[in-house]
């Protein structure tokens, strides 16, 4: 009689487990959303954009953040005075929080205002007076929270007050206030804060009057106080005046820049020059905040359309609509073809359109791609692994989506990015460098041999265009078509530019004194050295390809592979011979590319960005002339001459300008690529209902294979059971006998 009870009791956990599993499955089955949805059911149908990030942003403090994975967030939160027009090309600046575009006026050394059209030699300072709009308010933030008597609630916290605090949301009270000009000045001063290490401090201290001395003053103050360098310490920067940034009144401030620097206005469109309220600085500097990872680097405070409400870069970051955002209207004008492409459908509508943006951490390309195809991400890039699945390239080089993508209603956007990848020659090197005819011909021969058309085809799936000069399309000075071709390397044909034959490169090489890759004086083979980083299978294939290009001229190429740190060290010391590097534009001005070859930016001598250490007197003189000129025929003429000098001297093999491919679903609108602006999220619009329908259509769970697997398992147990029975019978017989 006890056995059944025992059996029953033992089965209770099993029954409970089965009930649990059935309940869970029933819950999933009854849920409206597909089983494979990675999002909570309550988000279904909501106006939420889903995107991903591969690496967590290191800095969200606008004085520090510079990397592209950081401005993705900061661009939506912080508002500098200017921004790029979303639709117009070439890229144009327009006011964001400023009431109008600031016009610089000039002063002489004595501080006297110069008349318009004054000569550059007279200009000692440029002055920008910026007026901001009234009524702009910050996002809700505890730094602004006040009690009934108007005292700040969280400005004098003690360690014990933070006992129950782990994230910013643990501060229950929030407040806001109006944006004032002093906040912009405060942020400019922060660029010089010795503990912030702003990446643009070095550059800006050369321009903003008094910034270098300001940094020294702050450093001295901190040293006198003796606070540990790693500990945050609030300094009220308003107590320390800066000559180059001054508050004029509540809504106006002035920036004074040394000399003439027209490119400065581009910097005014970057988060470096966004406002920062002193309250936030004080709030985050309190003891115990840093230990809880509550810092300005983690929880930004801005006036922009979005605010960061979840910052868990281990998993997810969430931007939500800033309830205090003033509202901004979608542009009414665009470039040619924008109306036909539907980019003006929302003209005049109040932005932002999307309520919330969820960025999920995705370390690998394959899961990200699969989730995009399932409709769980709205936009996607294309990795090499999935390129063939997404894009087909016709025999004429025309690019189209595959039928599979078209059937899903996926669209493709392509744009040549404002960047360049180049192969540089160290001009300090005795073999490939210098201004001799021999070295110049050698470099030109190598430039012809490096077949970047092939490189783009093999390693970039056709995503790029060979560079004819340092200037990419979209930047003033770039010339398309026959006029823009580098005639040292290309011949113009009916099909467009055609790379010169290798025989021409061999001829140049022979003229340089290396017929068939041998030094005519010594008879020894020419051995060159290529310094690079990498070590992955991909990079090894690329290195082999480069070796083959040199071998076309019978030149032996030794690859000196190293990690990026060692590589940078070599570049700083000038011990590399040939190298590959790239540059991504800070702003759409030819100065931002041509300065990469300006003599006073030499890497070895001046620790600048001129990694080739190229120095040409005429080029340098023209650069100094060009950088302050306004775009127009005069500037174009100077740029043409500069480009001609570079083509002749060939300090770089002008590699290629990458092409960005972006895929997006049918429900995603206003997808026009803007490679300069980093605050484009507010322009985007989605149709969540269409997305919901598509997701459901694409993600019906297929259950029968599970049943099949179960059946197979049962079937496979049968022989085991038969074997067991047979074994038992045999054993029984053996015992009986």
């Amino acid at each position, binding site marked *: 009689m006890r056995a059944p009870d025992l059996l029953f009791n033992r089965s209770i956990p099993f029954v409970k487990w089965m009930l649990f599993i059935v309940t869970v499955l029933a819950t999933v089955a009854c849920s409206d959303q597909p089983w*494979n949805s990675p999002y909570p059911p309550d988000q279904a149908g909501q106006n939420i954009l889903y995107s991903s990030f591969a690496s967590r942003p290191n800095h969200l403090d606008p004085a520090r953040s510079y990397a592209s994975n950081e401005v993705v967030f900061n661009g939506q939160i912080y508002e500098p005075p200017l921004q790029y027009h979303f639709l117009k090309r070439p890229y144009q600046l327009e006011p964001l929080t400023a009431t109008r575009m600031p016009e610089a006026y000039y002063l002489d050394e004595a501080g006297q205002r110069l008349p318009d059209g004054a000569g550059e030699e007279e200009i000692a300072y440029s002055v920008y007076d910026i007026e901001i709009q009234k009524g702009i308010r910050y996002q809700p933030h505890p730094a602004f929270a006040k009690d009934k008597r108007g005292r700040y609630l969280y400005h004098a916290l003690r360690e014990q007050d933070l006992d129950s605090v782990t994230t910013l949301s643990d501060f229950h009270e929030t407040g806001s206030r109006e944006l004032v000009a002093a906040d912009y000045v405060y942020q400019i001063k922060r660029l010089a804060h010795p503990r912030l290490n702003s990446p643009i401090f070095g550059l800006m201290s050369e321009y903003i009057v008094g910034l270098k001395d300001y940094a020294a003053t702050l450093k001295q103050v901190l040293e006198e106080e003796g606070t540990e360098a790693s500990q945050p310490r609030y300094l009220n920067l308003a107590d320390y005046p800066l000559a180059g940034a001054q508050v004029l009144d509540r809504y106006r401030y002035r920036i004074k820049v040394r000399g003439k620097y027209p490119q400065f206005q581009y910097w005014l469109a970057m988060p470096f020059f966004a406002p920062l309220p002193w309250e936030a600085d004080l709030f985050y500097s309190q003891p115990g905040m840093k230990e*809880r*990872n509550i810092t300005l680097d983690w929880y930004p405070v801005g006036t922009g359309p979005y605010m960061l409400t979840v910052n868990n870069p281990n998993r997810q970051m969430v931007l939500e609509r800033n309830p205090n955002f003033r509202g901004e209207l979608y542009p009414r004008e665009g470039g040619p073809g924008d109306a036909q492409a539907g980019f003006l459908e929302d003209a005049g509508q109040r932005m932002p359109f999307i309520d919330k943006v969820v960025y999920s951490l995705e370390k690998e390309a394959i899961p990200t791609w699969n989730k995009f195809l399932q409709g769980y991400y709205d936009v996607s890039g294309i990795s090499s692994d999935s390129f063939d699945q997404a894009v087909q390239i016709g025999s004429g080089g025309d690019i189209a989506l595959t039928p599979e993508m078209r059937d899903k209603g996926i669209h493709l956007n392509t744009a040549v990015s404002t960047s360049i990848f180049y192969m540089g020659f160290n001009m300090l090197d005795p073999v490939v460098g210098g201004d001799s005819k021999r070295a110049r011909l050698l470099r030109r021969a190598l430039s012809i041999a490096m077949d970047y058309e092939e490189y783009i085809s093999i390693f970039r799936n056709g995503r790029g265009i060979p560079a004819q000069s340092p200037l990419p399309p979209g930047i003033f000075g770039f010339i398309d078509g026959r006029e823009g071709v580098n005639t040292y390397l290309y011949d113009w044909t009916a099909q467009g530019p055609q790379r010169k034959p290798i025989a021409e490169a061999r001829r140049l090489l022979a003229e340089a004194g290396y017929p068939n890759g041998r030094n005519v004086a010594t008879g020894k083979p020419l051995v060159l050295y290529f310094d690079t980083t990498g070590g992955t299978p991909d990079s090894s294939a690329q290195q082999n390809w480069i070796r083959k290009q040199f071998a076309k001229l019978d030149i032996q190429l030794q690859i000196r592979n190293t990690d990026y740190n060692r590589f940078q060290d070599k570049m700083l010391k000038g011990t590399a011979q040939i190298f590959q590097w790239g540059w991504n534009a800070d702003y759409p001005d030819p100065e931002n590319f041509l300065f990469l070859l300006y003599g006073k930016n030499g890497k070895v001598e001046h620790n600048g960005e001129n990694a080739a250490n190229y120095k040409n007197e005429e080029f340098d003189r023209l650069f100094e002339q060009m950088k302050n000129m306004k775009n127009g025929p005069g500037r174009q003429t100077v740029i043409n001459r500069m480009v001609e000098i570079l083509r002749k001297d060939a300090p770089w093999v002008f590699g290629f300008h990458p092409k960005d491919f972006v895929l997006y679903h049918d429900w995603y609108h206003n997808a026009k690529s803007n490679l300069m602006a980093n605050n484009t999220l507010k322009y985007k619009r989605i149709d969540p209902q269409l997305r919901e329908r598509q997701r459901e259509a694409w993600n019906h769970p297929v259950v029968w294979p599970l049943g099949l697997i179960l059946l197979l398992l049962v079937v496979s147990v049968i022989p085991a059971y038969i074997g067991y029975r047979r074994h038992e019978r045999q054993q029984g017989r053996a015992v009986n006998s």
Partner: protein
Amino acid sequence: MLAYIIRRTLYAIPILIGVNLLTFVLFFVVNTPDDVARMHLGAKRVTPEAIEQWKQEHGYDQPLLYNRKASGVAKVTDTIFYNKSMRLFAFDFGSSDAGRDIGEDISQRMWPSLAIALPTLLIGLLVNISFSMLLAFFRGTYLDLSGVMLAVVLMSVSSLFYIIGGQYLFSKLLHLVPVSGYESGMQAWRFVLLPVAIGVFSGIGAGSRWYRTFFLEEVNRDYVRTARAKGLPEARLLFRHVLRNAMVPILTGIVVILPTLFMGSLIMESFFGIPGLGSYTIEAIQTQDFAIVRAMVFLGSVLYILGLLLTDISYTLVDPRIRLS
């Protein structure tokens, strides 16, 4: 036993110092403090002054191991090694080079790692034991041979294949579970299901072959032969006697890895977007965040030593003949 535990704990100190020193040397052979600073300051527009400032702020402006300019004990204590590594012994992990509190990060990220590792271990144990017992029961038959062959095949396949294949089959084709992602709380099971299933399946080959040898070793012992001669049914023999005795090496093998379950799986977490400690370590290596690398290596060493200690203790618990002295 207490004396043994204290002795083993004391032995651990020089081991941990050695591990710390080795990590430190290996890291700084590859990277100088200047490299680390450059990595954190970004590739563009970094000035030598900014590098010096960053080093000063993060305590990398001192000599690495020996300070010639200092006097007395300060020759050793005024160094990067001493200042960065010694406080780990008080489990003060400090801040990452990016400024985050490492202890806080670890306490957050160990749970997702555990959510994958613990069910994988337990279910895997159950499946592997069942499968290997089945093979042991049918030892020498075609069933055993097929099972061993299957185990060898399963062992030979890369875990990456299981992950990508599993995601493709169950998420992309059958639409049963999310491809990747993570949610805490009750929603977590949807994201944990596939990684756990893949973890269990990919471990069947190695686990069942290993356990099979334990069972076969036990099956050939005298007490089993005696029990069989007395007419004990084979199934009862296996479950009652063989399993119990074979569990000694199995469990002690498990105990050693128990503490390290917190450390997570590097590839699995990366592909499934699990915000655990495995991906934390990988990220730190990629971003050259020495503070995190050092903390994770130290933590891993401590947990491994703890695992070994627990194994020794577990021997005494499962086998009363063993005495720790």
